[in-house]
């Protein structure tokens, strides 16, 4: 690096052993640690992220447990995959609101004025929520075991099911990051999330078998990507019981459907988000 234009007496020399790749990992690490510290100091967010799944597991399994019949299984087993999916998806929305908050608070402009990689800010954002999702999945597993849920397809499929949830959530957090970069304020984002995601998770097979829904809703539910995720996880956990899968391709082949969906999202949204992040910047 040239020293032209620096006042050599006072400017601090940069670490000479640096490479671009190492710098990138340093950037991701520094911002991820910052995000996690921030999260750690926001007990409301953590509390909501952890208590909500516990509450949903208990409420649904105890309230609807006797009312909703699932052939060859029971409602609690059927329910768990739905709650898992709902929780990690809502967990990923934190990416969007934090991104919008950081823009509002001027932190993003601070990052932009530093000699760091723009992509590192976004990757760190998605990683932080990945870690939060691991924590909330662990809490849910414990709650599930307590209310009698069991996985029945072996440990390998069980682990694959968890991985599928986490990677889906990670991909989805890129969608939320992109939205977070596009909205005017964190409040707008939180409202939009509620209006879009709540119906989307409820008009799916997450809490009731989709064939119990009226025709229009049933068609939406069968093609809903969240349904595919829930169906895939249910299958890997062995919680489908004797229910026949609905006669549509995504429901018949849920795991490949989810994998393709993840691939498409990851091909489209990270580049879009980086472009949005650098928009207007030099």
């Amino acid at each position: 690096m040239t020293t032209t234009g620096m006042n050599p007496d006072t400017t601090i020399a940069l670490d000479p052993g640096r490479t671009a790749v190492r710098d990138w990992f340093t950037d991701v690490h520094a911002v991820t640690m910052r995000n996690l510290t921030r999260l750690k100091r926001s007990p409301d967010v953590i509390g909501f992220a952890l208590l909500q799944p516990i509450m949903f597991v208990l409420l649904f399994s105890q309230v609807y447990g006797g009312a909703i019949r699932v052939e060859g299984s029971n409602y609690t087993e059927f329910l768990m995959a739905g709650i898992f999916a709902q929780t990690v998806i809502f967990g990923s929305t934190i990416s969007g609101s934090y991104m919008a908050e950081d823009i509002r608070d001027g932190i993003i402009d601070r990052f932009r004025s530093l000699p760091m990689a723009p992509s590192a800010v976004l990757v760190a954002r998605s990683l932080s929520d990945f870690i939060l999702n691991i924590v909330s999945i662990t809490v849910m597993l414990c709650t599930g075991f307590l209310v009698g849920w069991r996985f029945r397809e072996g440990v390998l499929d069980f682990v694959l099911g968890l991985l599928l949830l986490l990677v889906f959530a990670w991909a989805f957090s890129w969608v939320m990051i992109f939205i977070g970069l596009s909205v005017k304020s964190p409040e707008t984002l939180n409202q939009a999330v509620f209006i879009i995601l709540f119906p989307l998770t409820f008009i799916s097979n997450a809490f009731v078998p989709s064939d119990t829904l009226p025709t229009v809703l049933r068609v939406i539910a069968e093609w809903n990507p969240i349904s595919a995720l829930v169906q895939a996880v249910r299958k890997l956990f062995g919680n489908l019981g004797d229910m026949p899968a609905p006669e549509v391709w995504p429901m018949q082949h849920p795991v490949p459907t989810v994998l393709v969906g993840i691939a498409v999202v990851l091909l489209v949204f990270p580049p879009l988000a980086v472009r949005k992040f650098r928009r207007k910047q030099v």
Partner: protein
Amino acid sequence: MAFVSAHGLTKTYRAKSGPVHALDGLDIEIEQGTVRGLLGPNGAGKTTTVKVLSTLLRPDGGQAFVAGVDVLADPAEVRRRIGASGQYAAVDERLTARENLLMVGRLYHLGSRRSRERAEELLHAFDLVEAADRPLKGFSGGMRRRVDLAGALVINPPVLFLDEPTTGLDPQARLGLWDVIRERAAEGTTVLLTTQYLEEADQLADQISVIDRGKVIAEGTADELKASVGGRRVQVTLVNESDAPRVAGILERHGRGPADVSGRGVTVQVENATLALRSALAEIDDAGIDIHEAGVRRPTLDDVFLTLTGHGAVDDDMEAAQ
């Protein structure tokens, strides 16, 4: 050659009411090791200028160089040579002062050991040691601004951009920050400072650029700018505001140009201060108008503003913070 320079910068925003020319052919040249004050009414283009020079905003047209590097061609290289602080580049209030500084050091790629040492040095230099390990959220604005400024100085950059660094601070905290900025300038740092406080520019800046509607409309030292808007002023403060129009009429007969009325204060620029004051007071007395005080004063930067832009400096400043 100037150490920081911009030529013909333009930037237009689309707004509901039509296009807004935030920058409209702005030129600026700042010598190395000097402090430049950027003064202007709200929406004049101060923050936009700083954002362009600190690589945060791409201008629609024009050229800019910072520390010998072309901002548009090599922004990454510019970012290694600047520190930025102020209303748009902020600290993280949920982190402690130490965590903030450490993070900034690592993002300048100082390495983790050097970043820790540097954070420690800055905590000492900015008198932040005692409070270093508590989240900033609970602290006063003055303290947060100190951390913010310390963050901009992590690598002792050759160029420092400060966007309204003391807005909202109490006078004591402001004086403290002024000292730091003066010290940096004395060490050879080139500083570009925007401010809504005329006094701040007067105190800190070697040169002041007055901008309005995206252009530099006047430039010089504070004294030069004051001299450029003519000589002394006669100022009269009234007991009753309702007398202001009559007194304005009287002052205008003894001064040059129109009188400026602001509440109970009436001011006019004059040729011969003592003579004008004496005869104006006699006439006010004859008219039976009560006054609080009257006197002669040198022009302030407020007068510079008023004369050059046709409006005052501090009329709607808080809008910029939104």
